[in-house]
């Protein structure tokens, strides 16, 4: 635990909590402009959150404590990832937790908690959303682990600071076949895990197509605010991980005001550009049928397997 790590961790937590609704706002705004609408502005998700937080909490009849605890756990798990992963600085606030396997599994755990809450409502929608989300998770998780593995084998460690640091020192490694294949696979993982097109449509409320929204249909008021915040944080954390694993430049390696400021700026720019690009691409995509999604995920699993095999046969 170093000064840089602690400072970076605190900065990251604030940055992710404050910035992630803005990222969602940005992505919606890009999409609106591309579709020829004026859009609600970048700050709209924050205005929504403020409104929801001020409402009276509502518990649907027949649900248990798990339903009420799930949003808190979702945000808490994402918050821990936001603190420990190297986003702003290469040092981590808690080095023994900043492991790529731990981080990805922790993010998956957030989804699992929400799926259980969806099942807990006992409605058809809740069960349907939970079933679909769990199916996608079960297929995405292997791809994520394989991609992690492909990135870790050349570095000889699954520790995030080590992987990011090695990318900084040896830029050629970022362009190796294993790394590129893993990048594509991880991109698909991020798209699937955060419920973006073409896997899930975040703005749909049609029962035939809903995945994530069906699962959280019963949430309202402050609970819904936490769910929305948690989802936004997951999106920015995933994009941040993707950015720093493959484009680590700009991240702070020492504890100076200038270095940290540069680190924050680099992260904001990278995540904003990635998010905008994702939103831009989504305009041209339609959601695929639920039963075509596994084909997409099987493709990414294959890419990840190739990445691991490429990593085992060093050039």
């Amino acid at each position, binding site marked *: 635990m170093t000064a840089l790590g602690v400072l970076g961790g605190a900065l990251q937590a604030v940055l992710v909590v404050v910035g992630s609704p803005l990222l969602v706002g940005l992505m919606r705004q890009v999409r609106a402009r591309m579709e020829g609408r004026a859009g609600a502005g970048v700050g709209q998700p924050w205005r929504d959150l403020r409104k929801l*937080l*001020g409402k009276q*909490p*509502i*518990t*649907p*009849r027949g649900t*248990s404590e798990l339903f009420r605890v799930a949003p*808190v*756990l979702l945000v*808490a798990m994402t*918050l821990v990832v936001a*603190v420990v992963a190297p986003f702003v600085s290469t040092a981590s606030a*808690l080095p*023994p*937790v900043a*492991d790529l*396997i*731990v981080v990805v*599994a*922790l993010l*998956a*755990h957030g989804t*699992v908690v929400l*799926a259980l809450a969806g*099942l*807990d*409502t*006992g*409605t*058809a929608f809740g*069960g*349907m959303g*939970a*079933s679909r989300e*769990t*199916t996608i*998770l*079960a*297929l*995405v*998780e*292997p791809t994520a*682990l*394989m991609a992690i*593995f492909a990135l*870790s*084998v050349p570095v*000889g460690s*699954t*520790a995030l600071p080590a992987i990011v640091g090695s990318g900084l020192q040896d830029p050629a490694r970022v362009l190796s076949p294993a790394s590129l294949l893993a990048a594509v696979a991880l991109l698909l993982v991020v798209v699937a895990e955060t419920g973006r097109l073409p896997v899930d449509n975040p703005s749909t409320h049609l029962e035939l197509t809903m995945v994530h929204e069906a699962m959280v*249909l*019963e949430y309202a008021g402050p609970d819904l*605010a*936490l769910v929305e915040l948690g989802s936004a944080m997951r999106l920015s954390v995933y994009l941040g991980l993707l950015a720093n694993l493959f484009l680590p430049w700009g991240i702070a390696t020492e504890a100076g005001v200038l270095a940290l400021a540069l680190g924050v700026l680099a992260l904001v720019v990278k995540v904003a550009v990635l998010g905008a690009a994702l939103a831009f691409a989504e305009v041209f995509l339609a959601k695929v049928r*639920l*039963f075509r999604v596994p084909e997409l995920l099987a493709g990414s699993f294959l890419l990840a397997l190739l990445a*691991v095999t490429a990593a*085992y*046969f060093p050039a």
Partner: protein
Amino acid sequence: MSVVGAALAATGASCAGGVLAALAVPRARRALVVGMLTCVAGACATVAGAAAMLGHTWAAELPGLLPLSGVVLGVDALGGVFVAVGGAVAVAVALYGIGYSRHGLDGRAVQAMVPVFVGSLLLVPIAADVTTLLVAWELMALTSLLLVVAEHRRRAAVASAGRWYAVMTHLGFVAILIGLLVLAAPAADGSFAAVRAAAGALPPVAAGAVFVLCLVGFGSKAGIVPLHAWLPRAHPEAPSPVSALMSAAMVNLGVYGIVRVGLDLMGGGTRWWWLLVMALGAVSAVYGILQAVVSSDLKRLLAYSTTENMGLVLVGVGACGLFAATGNPVLAALALTAALLHLLGHAAFKTLLFLGAGSVLHATGTRDLDELGGLRAGMPVTTAAFGLGALAASTLPPGTAFVGEWLLLQSLVHGLPAPGVATSIVLPVAVAAVALTAGLAVATFVKAFGVGFLARPRSDAAAAARESPPTMLAGMALAGVACVVLAVAPTVVLPVLATVAGDLLAVAPPVSGAVTVELAGVTGALSPLLLATALALAAALVVVLPRLLVARRARRAARLWDCGAGPLSARMEYTATSFAEPLQRVFDDVLQPVQDIDVTHHRESAYLVQSVAYRRLVPDRVERRLYTPVLAAAAAWGRVGRRLGTGSVHRYLGYGFVGLCGLLVLLVLTR
């Protein structure tokens, strides 16, 4: 006499006392006395095992007990691990069994069999010669078989499960018998020390054959595909405490056998042995969890999950042997440590899950997930226990299985540079199998817990479920505590396990650390304790911070969203079958489910539907492809054989005459 010896003597005495008590004590007190004595036996064995793991060894010979070779006992650190695990499982199960036995399981025979079974499964890892091992193994097989069929009068399926188990376990025994006899042939006597010294004298082909035979025999006990057919039958049909003992303690001994014979007695062997072990482990892990994810029978699901977890353990054991054979003992020790830790974690959470499933069965009379649900209201403690077990089993942090899997992946990450093409193909495929298993395990346990315990009751039995008696809850609590300790503070046992693995491979312990799991020789660190603390702090922050910002108003209860169509009924809920349907569809080609939809129309109009019947069956494909033809061939052979014996004495005399002539001709020709 050392600590180990004294504790083991106490174990033996308690087991014997348990048997006597089962025969002598009247029915009203029988389960209590036998349960307490078995509990004491388990506790003593745990102490003995722990002491052995810490380096206290013990050996004894009882020459008069068996003809010819006598009984030779000895505990080393490796055996100590399995004694400790078996003992600890026995404590929780015996305590639980006191309450569970009230429902028709307090007969003399069943009660007497439990301590014998516990004793025999503790005897296997302390056997120090071939004969003792074989006798203990057979005793374990017979007593477990008798316990599996304990409820055969109530359900017809029990008898069939018992037959499968009896045949499979004895085929396995024959394989082990042949393998160990060939192995012991060049040795001076059957003791492990002599066998170890003489193992080098075996020619490579014979050594390979011995290893494969032992792998088949021990692997069938561990439930490895394709020898797993008995497991998803016997575990669900056995009484739940027995299922827990079998699934958490007995299957481990299959792994013990492979490690003992392959790594210890035969000293490592060549690369292909371990590639084979790894491949079998990977196939078992994926196949097991695939069957588990589509299963709607709670105990069958858990049984298939055992196949999966034993597969993962064998991937670790295989990696260990592979790294040892390619000259990297440090990594080998790390892989073995991962395998042992996963084995320990599996024992803890599988005990908890089977005991939880037993409570559900006890309270509702069904283990069909499609008829359960809503148990959290009537059975809060069981629900919490099962939830904890499900978290532990689903390889998510901070869970029990996660630490073992993390260690296993660490050893595979550092398996570079992989020498040989076969190795560089098998290692990535093994990683893929582990990864696929992790994802599907999550889905499996979300289904088991979410559908079985949350939501609303799907049947009257589930709605009327009441909490189990305190002894059953106490048994679950013990297993739950073990799960939590292994999840949050695995460092309590990891250094000891690492020493065991290190000693076996003659290197320094590969894992150390008090709060953080630190790997020696390779980079890598993980601290489940810090992770759990960070999560708790973050959760507290998330609860407190919004309350500081916005004034909180009182919670209000509201109706569930029912689309304005009136109250929702339980029939509108997702069931376990519908929950797993998307995954079943994705893995259609592998699972090949059999679906049957029967639509009956009204007599007046073909457009009006009167009723729809839907039936889905996911048969075990390995079983259908592999076992059905063999069974059919055996049956055909039997029919042919029947034609030979018509009952005519003349014919039998003729057979004897022809046989004798043939023998004489053979003798003349070979002289």
